[in-house]
Protein backbone atom coordinates (compact mmCIF):
# COMPACT_ATOMS: atom_id res chain seq x y z
CA UNK A 1 0.00 0.00 0.00
CA UNK A 2 1.27 3.46 -0.93
CA UNK A 3 2.05 5.59 2.15
CA UNK A 4 -0.17 8.65 2.33
CA UNK A 5 2.09 10.97 4.27
CA UNK A 6 4.92 13.37 3.65
CA UNK A 7 7.70 12.23 5.96
CA UNK A 8 10.81 14.11 7.09
CA UNK A 9 13.18 12.04 9.17
CA UNK A 10 15.89 14.01 10.99
CA UNK A 11 16.46 16.20 7.95
CA UNK A 12 19.21 18.81 8.07
CA UNK A 13 20.27 21.17 5.34
CA UNK A 14 23.10 23.66 5.51
CA UNK A 15 24.07 26.26 2.91
CA UNK A 16 27.79 26.27 3.54
CA UNK A 17 27.92 27.40 7.15
CA UNK A 18 24.44 28.87 7.10
CA UNK A 19 21.70 26.77 8.65
CA UNK A 20 18.77 25.95 6.41
CA UNK A 21 16.87 23.47 8.54
CA UNK A 22 18.15 21.36 11.38
CA UNK A 23 16.98 17.90 12.52
CA UNK A 24 13.50 18.28 11.14
CA UNK A 25 11.22 15.34 11.67
CA UNK A 26 7.70 15.69 10.38
CA UNK A 27 4.82 13.50 9.37
CA UNK A 28 2.32 15.49 7.35
CA UNK A 29 -1.03 13.82 6.66
CA UNK A 30 -3.22 14.74 3.67
CA UNK A 31 -5.12 18.01 4.03
CA UNK A 32 -4.03 21.61 4.17
CA UNK A 33 -0.82 22.16 6.06
CA UNK A 34 0.59 25.62 6.55
CA UNK A 35 4.25 26.31 7.17
CA UNK A 36 4.44 29.32 9.42
CA UNK A 37 7.49 31.20 10.57
CA UNK A 38 9.38 34.44 10.24
CA UNK A 39 11.46 35.32 7.19
CA UNK A 40 14.49 33.05 6.94
CA UNK A 41 12.97 30.47 9.27
CA UNK A 42 13.36 27.68 6.72
CA UNK A 43 9.90 27.43 5.14
CA UNK A 44 11.10 27.69 1.55
CA UNK A 45 14.00 25.36 2.33
CA UNK A 46 11.48 22.75 3.51
CA UNK A 47 9.48 23.20 0.31
CA UNK A 48 12.57 22.96 -1.88
CA UNK A 49 13.57 19.81 -0.02
CA UNK A 50 10.12 18.30 -0.57
CA UNK A 51 10.31 18.91 -4.29
CA UNK A 52 13.90 17.75 -4.66
CA UNK A 53 15.22 21.13 -5.80
CA UNK A 54 17.77 20.77 -3.03
CA UNK A 55 18.77 17.64 -1.19
CA UNK A 56 19.31 17.20 2.54
CA UNK A 57 22.81 16.95 3.96
CA UNK A 58 21.43 14.53 6.50
CA UNK A 59 18.22 12.55 7.02
CA UNK A 60 15.65 11.38 4.52
CA UNK A 61 12.39 12.56 2.96
CA UNK A 62 9.56 10.48 1.52
CA UNK A 63 6.72 12.07 -0.38
CA UNK A 64 3.89 9.55 -0.32
CA UNK A 65 6.56 6.88 -0.50
CA UNK A 66 8.61 8.55 -3.23
CA UNK A 67 12.07 10.02 -2.86
CA UNK A 68 12.63 13.63 -3.95
CA UNK A 69 15.76 12.33 -5.69
CA UNK A 70 13.47 10.71 -8.25
CA UNK A 71 11.92 13.69 -10.07
CA UNK A 72 10.75 11.48 -12.92
CA UNK A 73 8.16 9.91 -10.61
CA UNK A 74 7.85 12.49 -7.85
CA UNK A 75 6.99 15.45 -10.04
CA UNK A 76 4.17 13.51 -11.69
CA UNK A 77 2.33 13.56 -8.36
CA UNK A 78 3.67 16.87 -7.08
CA UNK A 79 2.94 20.43 -8.13
CA UNK A 80 5.14 23.27 -6.95
CA UNK A 81 4.50 26.97 -7.17
CA UNK A 82 7.66 28.74 -6.07
CA UNK A 83 7.72 32.24 -4.66
CA UNK A 84 9.27 33.54 -7.89
CA UNK A 85 7.31 35.11 -10.68
CA UNK A 86 9.24 33.17 -13.31
CA UNK A 87 6.58 32.53 -15.94
CA UNK A 88 7.90 33.34 -19.44
CA UNK A 89 6.64 36.80 -20.36
CA UNK A 90 6.73 36.11 -24.09
CA UNK A 91 4.36 33.13 -23.91
CA UNK A 92 0.59 33.25 -23.63
CA UNK A 93 -0.85 31.79 -20.45
CA UNK A 94 -2.37 28.89 -22.38
CA UNK A 95 0.86 28.11 -24.26
CA UNK A 96 2.88 28.21 -21.08
CA UNK A 97 0.66 25.75 -19.26
CA UNK A 98 0.05 23.39 -22.18
CA UNK A 99 3.74 23.31 -23.11
CA UNK A 100 4.81 22.53 -19.57
CA UNK A 101 2.27 19.71 -19.58
CA UNK A 102 3.98 18.19 -22.62
CA UNK A 103 6.99 17.70 -20.36
CA UNK A 104 4.84 15.39 -18.24
CA UNK A 105 4.27 13.17 -21.24
CA UNK A 106 0.66 14.05 -22.01
CA UNK A 107 -0.41 14.07 -25.63
CA UNK A 108 -0.95 17.52 -27.13
CA UNK A 109 -4.75 17.16 -27.00
CA UNK A 110 -4.67 16.03 -23.39
CA UNK A 111 -2.18 18.76 -22.44
CA UNK A 112 -4.41 21.41 -23.98
CA UNK A 113 -7.48 20.04 -22.23
CA UNK A 114 -5.74 19.98 -18.86
CA UNK A 115 -4.28 23.46 -19.42
CA UNK A 116 -7.72 24.82 -20.18
CA UNK A 117 -9.17 23.18 -17.07
CA UNK A 118 -6.44 24.68 -14.87
CA UNK A 119 -7.00 28.12 -16.37
CA UNK A 120 -10.73 27.75 -15.75
CA UNK A 121 -10.15 26.87 -12.11
CA UNK A 122 -8.03 29.98 -11.64
CA UNK A 123 -10.45 32.18 -13.67
CA UNK A 124 -7.92 32.93 -16.36
CA UNK A 125 -9.77 31.74 -19.46
CA UNK A 126 -10.38 35.26 -20.75
CA UNK A 127 -6.69 36.06 -20.55
CA UNK A 128 -5.59 32.61 -21.75
CA UNK A 129 -4.41 33.76 -25.16
CA UNK A 130 -2.80 36.98 -23.97
CA UNK A 131 0.92 37.18 -23.37
CA UNK A 132 1.92 36.81 -19.73
CA UNK A 133 3.81 40.11 -20.08
CA UNK A 134 0.42 41.80 -20.26
CA UNK A 135 -0.87 40.13 -17.08
CA UNK A 136 -1.39 42.01 -13.83
CA UNK A 137 0.47 40.90 -10.70
CA UNK A 138 -2.57 38.97 -9.49
CA UNK A 139 -2.96 37.22 -12.85
CA UNK A 140 0.70 36.23 -12.87
CA UNK A 141 0.19 34.83 -9.39
CA UNK A 142 -2.74 32.81 -10.70
CA UNK A 143 -0.79 31.49 -13.68
CA UNK A 144 1.90 30.45 -11.18
CA UNK A 145 -0.75 28.42 -9.37
CA UNK A 146 -2.26 27.12 -12.60
CA UNK A 147 1.03 25.59 -13.73
CA UNK A 148 1.30 23.83 -10.37
CA UNK A 149 -2.19 22.30 -10.47
CA UNK A 150 -2.52 21.64 -14.20
CA UNK A 151 -1.31 18.03 -14.04
CA UNK A 152 -3.68 17.38 -11.13
CA UNK A 153 -1.03 16.45 -8.59
CA UNK A 154 -1.76 14.75 -5.31
CA UNK A 155 0.80 16.84 -3.43
CA UNK A 156 0.67 20.58 -3.92
CA UNK A 157 3.50 22.66 -2.52
CA UNK A 158 2.69 26.35 -2.71
CA UNK A 159 5.01 29.12 -1.56
CA UNK A 160 2.99 32.19 -0.58
CA UNK A 161 0.13 31.22 -2.92
CA UNK A 162 -2.27 33.97 -1.92
CA UNK A 163 0.03 36.95 -2.35
CA UNK A 164 -1.32 39.56 -4.71
CA UNK A 165 -4.74 37.97 -5.20
CA UNK A 166 -7.83 40.15 -4.96
CA UNK A 167 -10.36 39.19 -2.25
CA UNK A 168 -12.72 37.40 -4.62
CA UNK A 169 -10.05 35.24 -6.26
CA UNK A 170 -8.43 34.73 -2.87
CA UNK A 171 -11.69 33.30 -1.51
CA UNK A 172 -12.11 31.10 -4.58
CA UNK A 173 -8.54 29.87 -4.33
CA UNK A 174 -9.00 29.01 -0.67
CA UNK A 175 -12.15 27.11 -1.63
CA UNK A 176 -10.08 25.21 -4.21
CA UNK A 177 -7.53 24.32 -1.54
CA UNK A 178 -10.34 22.93 0.61
CA UNK A 179 -11.74 21.00 -2.35
CA UNK A 180 -8.36 19.43 -3.10
CA UNK A 181 -7.79 18.61 0.55
CA UNK A 182 -11.23 17.01 0.74
CA UNK A 183 -10.20 14.70 -2.09
CA UNK A 184 -7.38 13.43 0.09
CA UNK A 185 -4.58 15.44 -1.46
CA UNK A 186 -1.77 17.23 0.32
CA UNK A 187 -1.80 21.00 0.13
CA UNK A 188 1.35 22.34 1.78
CA UNK A 189 1.58 26.09 1.74
CA UNK A 190 3.44 28.92 3.39
CA UNK A 191 1.93 32.21 4.31
CA UNK A 192 2.72 35.28 6.34
CA UNK A 193 -0.91 36.20 6.78
CA UNK A 194 -1.65 34.41 10.02
CA UNK A 195 -5.37 35.10 10.06
CA UNK A 196 -5.58 33.42 6.67
CA UNK A 197 -3.57 30.42 7.83
CA UNK A 198 -6.04 30.08 10.67
CA UNK A 199 -8.98 29.83 8.31
CA UNK A 200 -7.31 27.62 5.73
CA UNK A 201 -5.27 25.09 7.63
CA UNK A 202 -6.07 21.64 8.87
CA UNK A 203 -2.68 21.58 10.54
CA UNK A 204 0.27 23.86 10.93
CA UNK A 205 4.03 23.53 11.15
CA UNK A 206 5.66 26.36 13.08
CA UNK A 207 9.28 26.90 12.13
CA UNK A 208 11.87 29.17 13.64
CA UNK A 209 15.61 29.34 12.99
CA UNK A 210 15.49 26.19 10.89
CA UNK A 211 13.82 24.10 13.54
CA UNK A 212 10.26 22.88 13.87
CA UNK A 213 8.82 24.54 16.97
CA UNK A 214 5.44 22.84 16.80
CA UNK A 215 3.34 20.81 14.42
CA UNK A 216 -0.19 19.46 14.35
CA UNK A 217 -3.71 20.78 14.57
CA UNK A 218 -3.90 24.30 15.94
CA UNK A 219 -5.95 23.25 18.96
CA UNK A 220 -3.59 20.40 19.82
CA UNK A 221 -0.57 22.65 19.55
CA UNK A 222 -2.23 25.21 21.82
CA UNK A 223 -3.02 22.54 24.41
CA UNK A 224 0.65 21.60 24.54
CA UNK A 225 1.67 25.10 25.62
CA UNK A 226 1.18 24.64 29.37
CA UNK A 227 3.24 27.61 30.49
CA UNK A 228 0.83 30.09 28.93
CA UNK A 229 -2.70 30.27 30.41
CA UNK A 230 -5.46 29.65 27.87
CA UNK A 231 -7.67 32.61 27.09
CA UNK A 232 -11.43 32.50 26.59
CA UNK A 233 -13.97 35.16 25.82
CA UNK A 234 -17.21 34.59 27.71
CA UNK A 235 -20.27 36.47 26.49
CA UNK A 236 -22.92 36.71 29.24
CA UNK A 237 -25.60 39.02 30.60
CA UNK A 238 -24.24 39.39 34.14
CA UNK A 239 -20.54 39.58 33.61
CA UNK A 240 -19.54 40.90 37.08
CA UNK A 241 -21.27 38.03 38.86
CA UNK A 242 -19.83 35.42 36.52
CA UNK A 243 -16.41 36.98 37.11
CA UNK A 244 -16.78 36.72 40.86
CA UNK A 245 -17.80 33.04 40.63
CA UNK A 246 -14.91 32.24 38.29
CA UNK A 247 -12.41 33.97 40.58
CA UNK A 248 -13.10 31.33 43.22
CA UNK A 249 -11.65 28.66 40.93
CA UNK A 250 -7.96 27.79 41.53
CA UNK A 251 -7.09 27.41 37.87
CA UNK A 252 -8.28 30.91 36.91
CA UNK A 253 -5.35 33.32 36.77
CA UNK A 254 -7.01 36.46 35.48
CA UNK A 255 -10.44 37.78 34.58
CA UNK A 256 -11.00 41.03 32.71
CA UNK A 257 -14.41 42.63 32.37
CA UNK A 258 -15.44 44.06 29.04
CA UNK A 259 -16.32 47.74 28.95
CA UNK A 260 -19.91 46.89 27.95
CA UNK A 261 -20.21 44.59 31.01
CA UNK A 262 -21.55 41.90 28.70
CA UNK A 263 -18.43 39.84 28.49
CA UNK A 264 -15.23 38.64 30.12
CA UNK A 265 -11.76 37.68 29.08
CA UNK A 266 -10.80 34.71 31.26
CA UNK A 267 -7.35 33.16 31.61
CA UNK A 268 -7.05 29.65 32.91
CA UNK A 269 -4.25 27.19 33.53
CA UNK A 270 -6.55 24.21 33.03
CA UNK A 271 -8.87 24.11 30.05
CA UNK A 272 -10.84 21.09 31.25
CA UNK A 273 -11.51 22.53 34.70
CA UNK A 274 -12.56 25.78 33.07
CA UNK A 275 -14.91 23.88 30.82
CA UNK A 276 -16.52 22.16 33.80
CA UNK A 277 -16.74 25.43 35.74
CA UNK A 278 -18.42 27.30 32.91
CA UNK A 279 -20.94 24.45 32.47
CA UNK A 280 -21.79 24.68 36.16
CA UNK A 281 -22.22 28.43 35.94
CA UNK A 282 -24.46 28.08 32.90
CA UNK A 283 -26.61 25.48 34.67
CA UNK A 284 -26.91 27.84 37.65
CA UNK A 285 -28.76 30.25 35.37
CA UNK A 286 -26.16 32.94 34.78
CA UNK A 287 -27.10 33.22 31.14
CA UNK A 288 -23.92 32.33 29.29
CA UNK A 289 -24.36 33.22 25.62
CA UNK A 290 -21.03 32.09 24.18
CA UNK A 291 -17.59 30.82 25.15
CA UNK A 292 -14.94 31.45 22.52
CA UNK A 293 -11.26 30.46 22.71
CA UNK A 294 -9.30 33.69 22.33
CA UNK A 295 -5.84 32.30 21.70
CA UNK A 296 -6.58 29.11 19.81
CA UNK A 297 -5.27 30.56 16.60
CA UNK A 298 -2.04 30.77 14.68
CA UNK A 299 -1.54 34.38 15.67
CA UNK A 300 -1.39 33.45 19.34
CA UNK A 301 0.72 30.35 18.74
CA UNK A 302 3.14 32.41 16.69
CA UNK A 303 3.36 34.95 19.47
CA UNK A 304 3.85 32.32 22.19
CA UNK A 305 6.26 30.05 20.36
CA UNK A 306 8.17 32.30 18.02
CA UNK A 307 7.41 35.91 18.86
CA UNK A 308 8.76 35.76 22.39
CA UNK A 309 12.01 34.17 21.35
CA UNK A 310 12.77 36.90 18.88
Amino acid at each position, binding site marked *: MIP*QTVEFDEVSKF*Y*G*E*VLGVNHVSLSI*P*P*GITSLVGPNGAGKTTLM*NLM*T*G*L*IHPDDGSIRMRGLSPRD*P*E*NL*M*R*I*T*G*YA*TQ*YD*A*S*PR*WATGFNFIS*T*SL*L*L*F*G*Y*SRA*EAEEKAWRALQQLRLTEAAHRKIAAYSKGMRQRIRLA*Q*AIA*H*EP*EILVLDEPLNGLDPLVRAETIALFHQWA*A*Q*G*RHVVLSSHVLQEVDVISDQIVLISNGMVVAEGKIRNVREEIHERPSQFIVRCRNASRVASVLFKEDHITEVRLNEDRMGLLVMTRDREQFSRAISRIALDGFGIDAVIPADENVDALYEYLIGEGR
Partner: protein
Amino acid sequence: MAVYKRGYQRYQGPITSYWTRFMVLPRFAWRRMFQQRLVPLLMVIAMIWPLLCAIFIYLTNHAELLKGFSKQFQSFISINGNFFLVFMIVQADFALFLAALTGPGLIAPDLANNALPLYFSRPLRRSDYAFARLATLFVLISLVTWVPGILLFGMQVGMAGSDWLHGNWRLGFGVVAGFAIWGLLVSLVAMASSAYTKMKAVSGGLVLGFFFIMGGLSGMVNVIFRVTWGNALSPQWASRRIWCAMLGVDPNEGPGVAACALVLLSFMLLLAIVIERKLRPIEVIT
Protein backbone atom coordinates in the same frame (compact mmCIF):
# COMPACT_ATOMS: atom_id res chain seq x y z
CA MET B 1 -7.52 9.27 4.75
CA ALA B 2 -6.98 6.81 1.90
CA VAL B 3 -6.69 8.99 -1.12
CA TYR B 4 -8.49 6.67 -3.52
CA LYS B 5 -11.51 6.54 -1.27
CA ARG B 6 -11.85 10.30 -1.42
CA GLY B 7 -12.35 10.90 -5.10
CA TYR B 8 -8.82 11.54 -6.32
CA GLN B 9 -7.41 9.27 -8.99
CA ARG B 10 -3.74 9.28 -9.93
CA TYR B 11 -3.20 9.61 -13.71
CA GLN B 12 -3.04 6.13 -15.22
CA GLY B 13 -3.17 6.99 -18.92
CA PRO B 14 -0.39 6.59 -21.47
CA ILE B 15 2.51 9.01 -21.60
CA THR B 16 4.65 9.98 -24.53
CA SER B 17 8.15 8.56 -24.97
CA TYR B 18 11.21 9.99 -23.26
CA TRP B 19 12.52 11.50 -26.49
CA THR B 20 9.22 13.19 -27.29
CA ARG B 21 9.30 14.82 -23.87
CA PHE B 22 12.99 15.62 -24.19
CA MET B 23 12.45 17.38 -27.51
CA VAL B 24 9.85 19.77 -26.03
CA LEU B 25 12.58 22.09 -24.76
CA PRO B 26 14.64 22.27 -27.98
CA ARG B 27 11.52 22.69 -30.10
CA PHE B 28 10.38 25.71 -28.16
CA ALA B 29 13.89 27.12 -27.96
CA TRP B 30 14.24 26.91 -31.77
CA ARG B 31 10.90 28.61 -32.22
CA ARG B 32 12.09 31.44 -29.98
CA MET B 33 15.45 31.66 -31.75
CA PHE B 34 13.92 31.94 -35.20
CA GLN B 35 11.71 34.75 -33.96
CA GLN B 36 14.89 36.85 -33.80
CA ARG B 37 15.61 38.36 -37.22
CA LEU B 38 19.36 37.94 -36.98
CA VAL B 39 19.28 34.17 -36.60
CA PRO B 40 17.59 33.31 -39.92
CA LEU B 41 19.69 36.04 -41.57
CA LEU B 42 22.93 34.53 -40.30
CA MET B 43 21.75 31.06 -41.31
CA VAL B 44 21.11 32.29 -44.86
CA ILE B 45 24.51 34.02 -45.02
CA ALA B 46 26.12 30.85 -43.70
CA MET B 47 24.74 28.98 -46.72
CA ILE B 48 26.53 31.19 -49.26
CA TRP B 49 29.89 29.49 -48.81
CA PRO B 50 28.48 25.93 -49.14
CA LEU B 51 26.65 27.13 -52.27
CA LEU B 52 29.91 28.42 -53.75
CA CYS B 53 31.57 25.13 -52.84
CA ALA B 54 28.74 23.25 -54.57
CA ILE B 55 29.35 25.30 -57.71
CA PHE B 56 33.04 24.48 -57.38
CA ILE B 57 32.26 20.75 -57.14
CA TYR B 58 30.04 21.02 -60.19
CA LEU B 59 32.80 22.74 -62.17
CA THR B 60 35.50 20.28 -61.22
CA ASN B 61 33.30 17.42 -62.33
CA HIS B 62 32.53 18.97 -65.71
CA ALA B 63 35.85 19.00 -67.58
CA GLU B 64 34.25 20.60 -70.65
CA LEU B 65 33.61 23.77 -68.67
CA LEU B 66 37.32 24.08 -67.77
CA LYS B 67 38.72 23.66 -71.26
CA GLY B 68 39.92 27.26 -71.46
CA PHE B 69 42.03 26.97 -68.29
CA SER B 70 45.61 25.75 -68.04
CA LYS B 71 46.45 22.15 -67.10
CA GLN B 72 48.07 23.40 -63.89
CA PHE B 73 44.88 25.19 -62.87
CA GLN B 74 42.75 22.19 -63.77
CA SER B 75 44.83 19.95 -61.52
CA PHE B 76 44.75 22.57 -58.73
CA ILE B 77 40.99 22.70 -58.44
CA SER B 78 40.39 19.13 -57.37
CA ILE B 79 38.08 17.97 -54.60
CA ASN B 80 40.34 16.67 -51.86
CA GLY B 81 41.13 17.09 -48.17
CA ASN B 82 42.28 20.69 -48.68
CA PHE B 83 38.99 21.60 -50.30
CA PHE B 84 37.01 20.26 -47.34
CA LEU B 85 39.44 21.81 -44.85
CA VAL B 86 38.88 25.28 -46.30
CA PHE B 87 35.15 24.61 -46.32
CA MET B 88 35.28 23.62 -42.65
CA ILE B 89 37.38 26.60 -41.56
CA VAL B 90 34.88 29.07 -43.04
CA GLN B 91 31.80 27.27 -41.77
CA ALA B 92 33.32 26.87 -38.31
CA ASP B 93 33.44 30.65 -37.99
CA PHE B 94 29.77 30.88 -38.93
CA ALA B 95 29.04 28.27 -36.30
CA LEU B 96 30.88 30.36 -33.75
CA PHE B 97 28.93 33.51 -34.60
CA LEU B 98 25.69 31.54 -34.52
CA ALA B 99 26.56 30.19 -31.07
CA ALA B 100 27.45 33.68 -29.84
CA LEU B 101 24.12 34.95 -31.12
CA THR B 102 21.82 32.19 -29.91
CA GLY B 103 23.72 30.62 -27.01
CA PRO B 104 23.18 33.41 -24.47
CA GLY B 105 19.42 33.03 -24.72
CA LEU B 106 19.60 29.42 -23.66
CA ILE B 107 20.25 29.52 -19.93
CA ALA B 108 20.91 33.14 -18.93
CA PRO B 109 17.22 34.19 -19.01
CA ASP B 110 16.21 31.11 -17.00
CA LEU B 111 18.77 31.98 -14.35
CA ALA B 112 17.94 35.69 -14.36
CA ASN B 113 14.20 34.97 -13.97
CA ASN B 114 14.64 32.20 -11.40
CA ALA B 115 12.94 29.89 -13.86
CA LEU B 116 15.04 26.81 -13.15
CA PRO B 117 12.79 25.72 -10.26
CA LEU B 118 9.95 25.87 -12.77
CA TYR B 119 11.73 23.44 -15.07
CA PHE B 120 12.83 21.16 -12.27
CA SER B 121 9.31 21.02 -10.90
CA ARG B 122 8.58 18.82 -13.90
CA PRO B 123 9.59 15.19 -14.43
CA LEU B 124 12.90 16.51 -15.68
CA ARG B 125 16.40 15.92 -14.38
CA ARG B 126 19.13 18.54 -14.32
CA SER B 127 21.01 16.47 -16.86
CA ASP B 128 17.93 16.35 -19.14
CA TYR B 129 17.70 20.14 -19.04
CA ALA B 130 21.42 20.53 -19.78
CA PHE B 131 21.34 18.01 -22.65
CA ALA B 132 18.21 19.61 -24.07
CA ARG B 133 19.96 23.00 -24.12
CA LEU B 134 23.07 21.42 -25.62
CA ALA B 135 21.01 19.66 -28.28
CA THR B 136 19.26 22.93 -29.13
CA LEU B 137 22.54 24.59 -30.00
CA PHE B 138 24.27 21.55 -31.45
CA VAL B 139 21.47 20.91 -33.93
CA LEU B 140 21.42 24.58 -34.95
CA ILE B 141 25.18 24.55 -35.48
CA SER B 142 24.90 21.28 -37.38
CA LEU B 143 22.67 23.02 -39.93
CA VAL B 144 25.59 25.23 -40.99
CA THR B 145 28.41 22.74 -40.47
CA TRP B 146 28.28 19.01 -41.07
CA VAL B 147 24.84 18.95 -42.74
CA PRO B 148 25.97 21.12 -45.73
CA GLY B 149 29.34 19.38 -45.48
CA ILE B 150 27.86 15.92 -45.94
CA LEU B 151 25.60 17.24 -48.72
CA LEU B 152 28.67 18.54 -50.56
CA PHE B 153 30.39 15.22 -50.00
CA GLY B 154 27.30 13.41 -51.32
CA MET B 155 27.19 15.71 -54.33
CA GLN B 156 30.82 14.95 -55.12
CA VAL B 157 30.19 11.22 -54.75
CA GLY B 158 27.18 11.50 -57.02
CA MET B 159 29.20 13.26 -59.70
CA ALA B 160 32.57 11.57 -59.36
CA GLY B 161 31.25 8.05 -58.84
CA SER B 162 32.03 5.15 -56.54
CA ASP B 163 35.73 5.05 -57.42
CA TRP B 164 36.17 8.49 -55.89
CA LEU B 165 34.18 7.41 -52.83
CA HIS B 166 36.35 4.34 -52.43
CA GLY B 167 39.50 6.46 -52.28
CA ASN B 168 38.07 9.41 -50.31
CA TRP B 169 35.50 8.04 -47.87
CA ARG B 170 37.56 9.43 -44.98
CA LEU B 171 36.74 12.97 -46.16
CA GLY B 172 33.07 12.41 -45.43
CA PHE B 173 33.88 10.94 -42.06
CA GLY B 174 36.32 13.80 -41.36
CA VAL B 175 33.74 16.47 -42.15
CA VAL B 176 31.10 14.93 -39.88
CA ALA B 177 33.42 13.99 -37.00
CA GLY B 178 35.47 17.20 -37.23
CA PHE B 179 32.38 19.39 -37.17
CA ALA B 180 30.88 17.29 -34.37
CA ILE B 181 33.92 18.07 -32.20
CA TRP B 182 33.74 21.76 -33.09
CA GLY B 183 29.97 21.91 -32.60
CA LEU B 184 30.25 20.29 -29.20
CA LEU B 185 33.03 22.63 -28.10
CA VAL B 186 31.25 25.77 -29.32
CA SER B 187 27.95 24.65 -27.78
CA LEU B 188 29.62 24.00 -24.43
CA VAL B 189 31.35 27.40 -24.48
CA ALA B 190 28.04 29.09 -25.30
CA MET B 191 26.21 27.18 -22.58
CA ALA B 192 28.87 27.84 -19.97
CA SER B 193 28.96 31.56 -20.72
CA SER B 194 25.16 31.65 -20.71
CA ALA B 195 25.13 29.92 -17.33
CA TYR B 196 27.93 32.08 -15.97
CA THR B 197 26.52 35.50 -16.76
CA LYS B 198 22.87 36.32 -16.50
CA MET B 199 23.15 39.12 -19.09
CA LYS B 200 22.69 37.98 -22.69
CA ALA B 201 24.92 40.62 -24.29
CA VAL B 202 27.81 39.90 -21.93
CA SER B 203 27.34 36.20 -22.46
CA GLY B 204 27.52 36.56 -26.26
CA GLY B 205 30.71 38.60 -25.91
CA LEU B 206 32.15 35.95 -23.66
CA VAL B 207 31.64 33.24 -26.29
CA LEU B 208 33.64 35.18 -28.90
CA GLY B 209 36.05 36.39 -26.22
CA PHE B 210 36.88 32.86 -25.16
CA PHE B 211 38.12 31.92 -28.63
CA PHE B 212 39.91 35.24 -29.29
CA ILE B 213 41.59 35.29 -25.90
CA MET B 214 42.71 31.67 -26.10
CA GLY B 215 44.00 32.33 -29.64
CA GLY B 216 45.91 35.37 -28.42
CA LEU B 217 47.22 33.51 -25.39
CA SER B 218 48.53 30.67 -27.54
CA GLY B 219 50.37 33.20 -29.72
CA MET B 220 51.88 34.87 -26.65
CA VAL B 221 53.08 31.53 -25.27
CA ASN B 222 54.72 30.70 -28.58
CA VAL B 223 56.50 34.06 -28.75
CA ILE B 224 57.60 34.24 -25.11
CA PHE B 225 58.87 30.67 -24.85
CA ARG B 226 59.89 30.38 -28.52
CA VAL B 227 57.88 27.19 -28.89
CA THR B 228 55.05 25.93 -31.07
CA TRP B 229 53.20 23.85 -28.51
CA GLY B 230 51.36 27.00 -27.41
CA ASN B 231 49.17 26.50 -30.50
CA ALA B 232 47.41 23.71 -28.68
CA LEU B 233 45.95 26.32 -26.30
CA SER B 234 43.99 27.82 -29.17
CA PRO B 235 40.77 25.83 -29.58
CA GLN B 236 40.61 26.79 -33.28
CA TRP B 237 44.17 25.66 -33.95
CA ALA B 238 43.73 22.46 -31.97
CA SER B 239 40.50 21.65 -33.80
CA ARG B 240 42.07 22.34 -37.19
CA ARG B 241 45.00 20.10 -36.32
CA ILE B 242 42.55 17.28 -35.68
CA TRP B 243 40.63 18.06 -38.89
CA CYS B 244 43.90 17.91 -40.85
CA ALA B 245 44.54 14.43 -39.49
CA MET B 246 41.03 13.34 -40.32
CA LEU B 247 41.12 14.76 -43.83
CA GLY B 248 44.66 13.60 -44.56
CA VAL B 249 46.01 17.13 -45.03
CA ASP B 250 49.56 18.13 -44.05
CA PRO B 251 49.32 20.13 -40.83
CA ASN B 252 51.15 23.34 -39.88
CA GLU B 253 54.03 23.13 -37.46
CA GLY B 254 52.89 22.55 -33.89
CA PRO B 255 51.76 19.95 -31.40
CA GLY B 256 50.39 16.59 -32.56
CA VAL B 257 46.84 15.27 -32.78
CA ALA B 258 46.96 13.52 -29.40
CA ALA B 259 48.06 16.69 -27.57
CA CYS B 260 45.39 18.76 -29.33
CA ALA B 261 42.70 16.18 -28.59
CA LEU B 262 43.76 16.16 -24.93
CA VAL B 263 43.59 19.96 -24.73
CA LEU B 264 40.14 20.06 -26.35
CA LEU B 265 38.94 17.31 -24.04
CA SER B 266 40.23 19.30 -21.05
CA PHE B 267 38.42 22.42 -22.27
CA MET B 268 35.20 20.45 -22.63
CA LEU B 269 35.58 18.96 -19.18
CA LEU B 270 36.19 22.37 -17.60
CA LEU B 271 33.18 23.83 -19.41
CA ALA B 272 31.03 20.91 -18.27
CA ILE B 273 32.13 21.58 -14.67
CA VAL B 274 31.20 25.27 -14.99
CA ILE B 275 27.78 24.29 -16.35
CA GLU B 276 27.28 21.70 -13.62
CA ARG B 277 28.15 24.20 -10.90
CA LYS B 278 26.03 27.03 -12.24
CA LEU B 279 23.02 25.01 -13.27
CA ARG B 280 21.44 24.66 -9.84
CA PRO B 281 17.70 25.03 -9.33
CA ILE B 282 18.32 27.10 -6.23
CA GLU B 283 21.07 29.66 -6.19
CA VAL B 284 22.80 29.42 -2.86
CA ILE B 285 24.86 32.39 -1.73
CA THR B 286 26.87 31.64 1.38
